[in-house]
């Protein structure tokens, strides 16, 4: 099951309690720059703190020890580089809203899922509804309206639309090549 690097890093931080950047990148199988970016943003957000201690890391280098200052629970906090805590993504908010509304137009969805600081455009709601209909999460119910299919509420996380084309070996299942984000027209 695909989980994001941030989820893996956050889970590692929760489990370790105190950690160096190397600890986080290793436990989450993430690169050290990725761990550095996320931990620094969490420090600015006040969720992780610099413990003030140094520990011996690999190759005899001393490493800064961080500790989890505020455990926010299972979800990896969404933080910007400058430490601002961000709301859930627009798609995440739409996914929750459609489970509550059950029958809706894309406009209903965009309006209920909008935050003043992070509005959802109607076009974005239309695009998401079209994809989720292809994925059988929704079915069309009359002109421009959709019904959420209860049996397809598979969990808390919004289905992702991956904007990449992939070359996959059908024998081994291995991803052989990945393109840059495609300029796929919606």
């Amino acid at each position, binding site marked *: 099951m695909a989980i994001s690097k941030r989820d893996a890093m956050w889970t590692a931080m929760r489990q370790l309690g105190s950690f160096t950047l190397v600890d986080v990148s290793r436990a989450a199988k993430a690169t050290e720059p990725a761990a550095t970016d996320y931990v620094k943003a969490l420090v600015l957000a006040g969720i992780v703190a610099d413990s003030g201690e140094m520990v011996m890391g690999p190759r005899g280098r001393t490493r800064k020890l961080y500790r989890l200052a505020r455990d926010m629970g299972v979800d990896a906090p969404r933080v910007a580089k400058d430490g601002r805590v961000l709301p859930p993504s627009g798609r995440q908010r739409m996914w*929750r809203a459609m489970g509550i509304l*059950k029958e809706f137009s894309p406009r209903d969805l965009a309006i209920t899922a909008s935050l003043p600081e992070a509005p959802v455009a109607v076009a974005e709601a239309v695009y998401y509804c079209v994809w989720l209909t292809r994925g059988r999460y929704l079915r069309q119910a009359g002109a421009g309206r959709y019904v959420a299919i209860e049996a397809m509420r598979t969990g808390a996380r919004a289905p992702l639309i991956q904007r990449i084309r992939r070359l996959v070996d059908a024998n081994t299942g291995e991803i052989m090549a990945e393109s840059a984000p495609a300029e796929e027209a919606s």
Partner: protein
Amino acid sequence: MSTSETLVNTTPLPGGVAPLQNVALCLGALDKAAKRPGHLPGLVVLYGPSGYGKSTSAAYVATRTDAYYVEARSSWTKKAMLESILTSMDIRRGRTIQPARTISAMVDQAAEQLARSGRPLIIDEMDHVVDRNAVELVRDLYEASRAAILLIGEEQLPGKLAAWERFHGRILDWVAAQPADLDDARALRDMYCDRVRVADDLLADLVAAARGSIRRICVNLERIQEQGQLDGVDVMDRAAWGGRPLYTGEAPRRRS
């Protein structure tokens, strides 16, 4: 002067947007629950007849407060209820953090997540929880987390909850859902109508046809806009609409 702040309340709604009366009432009550002093209870009840936009309000409130949302079912066992709440928190089989095995450990797990995340919980169709005698479970969850919890149910919900004295005492606010009125319709018009303006006279007809339902107003606003675009007009009023039928939902059901 310190009084100037209270005289003119310029504070936007918690979370902003959606100046719908039921949404404002719920957000206000939840905000009060979230900021309450320690000795006050933290449960909020929204109740009212079906069709008054309780679930629509719940959708707005869930977005604004980043709430966990579950809808109770008549078939819910205690375990199913907790699994459902945990799933809304992304704690489920196949994920990094799995649900605990016993009911009591699941309560602890869900309560811990509520407390740590600081996010409220919304339980819709709360009547089923009462009917299934699972009210005490919600109380346990509340006691262990002290989180703000919004319970949504039918008109009779307050009466039903009165039987659970220890639960009843933990309710901070009872919010009676209000039927959608002209002010709500105006607010919805501002949010929905970006292509064709809907005049006040037609809006009043629409409120009457909607019989209190926000959803029916929204459906009609969309239809009127589409018709206006077809007709190539910028404003739709009663005359331009010309007595076409408005969407009124199903025929009103008789109460048993």
